[in-house]
């Protein structure tokens, strides 16, 4: 596999491998990647291009094709990083949401099909992530332990990701942690959110966290662009909220021992 490809290998002997396994596997792969890919800014139609289809075991791979958008390339990277993460431990990977975890769990049905001896994601020439019970358990656990609360996240909106499940997505780099958080939003916020791209913002809404408590996504209810000025020197603000600042008839601050 090339670096910008994601492959799927379904182990099994030709003649006994269920043809449906290939169909369901490819469909699940495309669903995981978010098909169709995010539209390029030019509005031209991108696609996931089939780049490998080999017999023996069934091996296939896709990569961003057609009009290759930065969003599609980014999405591929997010999916690959997430697969590697889930192979090691439970927890919603950065940039993933519950829909992605459910898409990964769909591969469980491929594993159980007639003639299928194993299923693996091929990340590149040397790296693969087998679809094992451990991987699927981690994905399942991530779904069950993710917590949701109303809250906010502050950071830099650094890219438009695309559209999935009727909502658009943008990527935010959180100030406090430097980690990526996926922001999803409805059409009513579209204009406001796009205007906030490449800006520092605070986003409010339903904040989802992974098993480690890290913010992974926010279902946005509103966004505010932050603009900064030059801060007033702190010395000019000493006592600004105190009695002295509030008016002459209030006693000024006293001095101990005075």
């Amino acid at each position, binding site marked *: 596999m090339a670096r910008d490809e994601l492959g799927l290998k379904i182990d099994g002997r030709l003649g006994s491998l269920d043809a449906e396994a290939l169909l369901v596997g490819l469909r699940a792969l495309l669903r995981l990647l978010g098909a169709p890919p995010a539209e390029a800014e030019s509005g031209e139609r991108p696609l996931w291009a089939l780049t490998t289809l080999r017999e023996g075991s069934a091996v296939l791979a896709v990569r961003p094709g057609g009009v290759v958008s930065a969003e599609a390339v980014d999405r591929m990277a997010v999916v690959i990083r997430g697969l590697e993460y889930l192979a090691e431990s439970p927890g919603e990977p950065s940039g993933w949401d519950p829909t992605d975890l459910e898409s990964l769990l769909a591969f469980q049905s491929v594993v159980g099909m007639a003639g299928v001896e194993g299923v693996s994601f091929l990340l590149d020439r040397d790296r693969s992530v087998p679809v094992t019970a451990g991987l699927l358990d981690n994905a399942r656990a991530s779904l069950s332990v993710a917590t949701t609360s109303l809250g906010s996240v502050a950071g830099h909106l650094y890219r438009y990701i695309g559209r999935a499940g009727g909502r658009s997505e943008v990527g935010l780099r959180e100030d406090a942690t430097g980690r990526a958080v996926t922001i999803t939003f409805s059409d009513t916020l579209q204009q406001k959110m796009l205007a906030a791209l490449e800006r520092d913002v605070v986003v409010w809404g339903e904040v989802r966290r992974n098993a480690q408590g890290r913010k992974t996504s926010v279902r946005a209810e509103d966004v505010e662009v932050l603009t900064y000025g*030059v*801060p007033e020197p702190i010395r000019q603000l000493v006592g600004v*909220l105190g009695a002295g*600042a*509030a*008016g002459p008839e209030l006693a000024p601050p006293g*001095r101990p021992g005075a």
Partner: protein
Amino acid sequence: MPELARVCIDANVFIDVFVRPAGRESRLPGSLWVLEAAERGEHQLVVPAHVIAETLCSGPMRPDAARLRADRKANVTRFLAWLRDSRPLVVEVDSLLAQHAGELGQELEIKGPDALVLAAALRARCTVLYSWDDDDLTRHDGHPLLDGLRVVNPTVPPDKLPMQLSLDDADDNAGEDEGEALERLRARYAVEDADIEAAEDAALESDR
């Protein structure tokens, strides 16, 4: 560029500076130093979100006269503008932080707001938490639960306190009146009156 050390503050540090309550002038230089060091880029200031509320809920809340209310509102706006523009790292109080604070509060037997400050400092991976609360916070400095976080009073490091009067200074200038002492310090260090007053207070305390 190396990442700046993060220092967290308790509400009393903000209150000392922005509210400047009567009877606590001796704490001003230390509290001011923490904020000015952040202003100079010597460390990254970390502010638990509820500290903002505690600060704004200190001092005179609702002056009677309309003009005073307007003044108060304008001053609150200045404070909030400073808070926005100086870009401290604000730690939001969320359910996870609240749960962690609850655990710390139980273990250390401290009140909720203090436990929230500790939890925020730990979440932000701060090296130091500055507080004047010796009853609930600084007495836990070095506790294993704090994972190396120092919890100390915000005293100005000796090498960064030019206006500090040493005992020798006090002896050399024995007999001078307050006005003379202020003039001497002003000429020597060119610092603000408030600093001089606080330094004198500290010297008086030492003499006692």
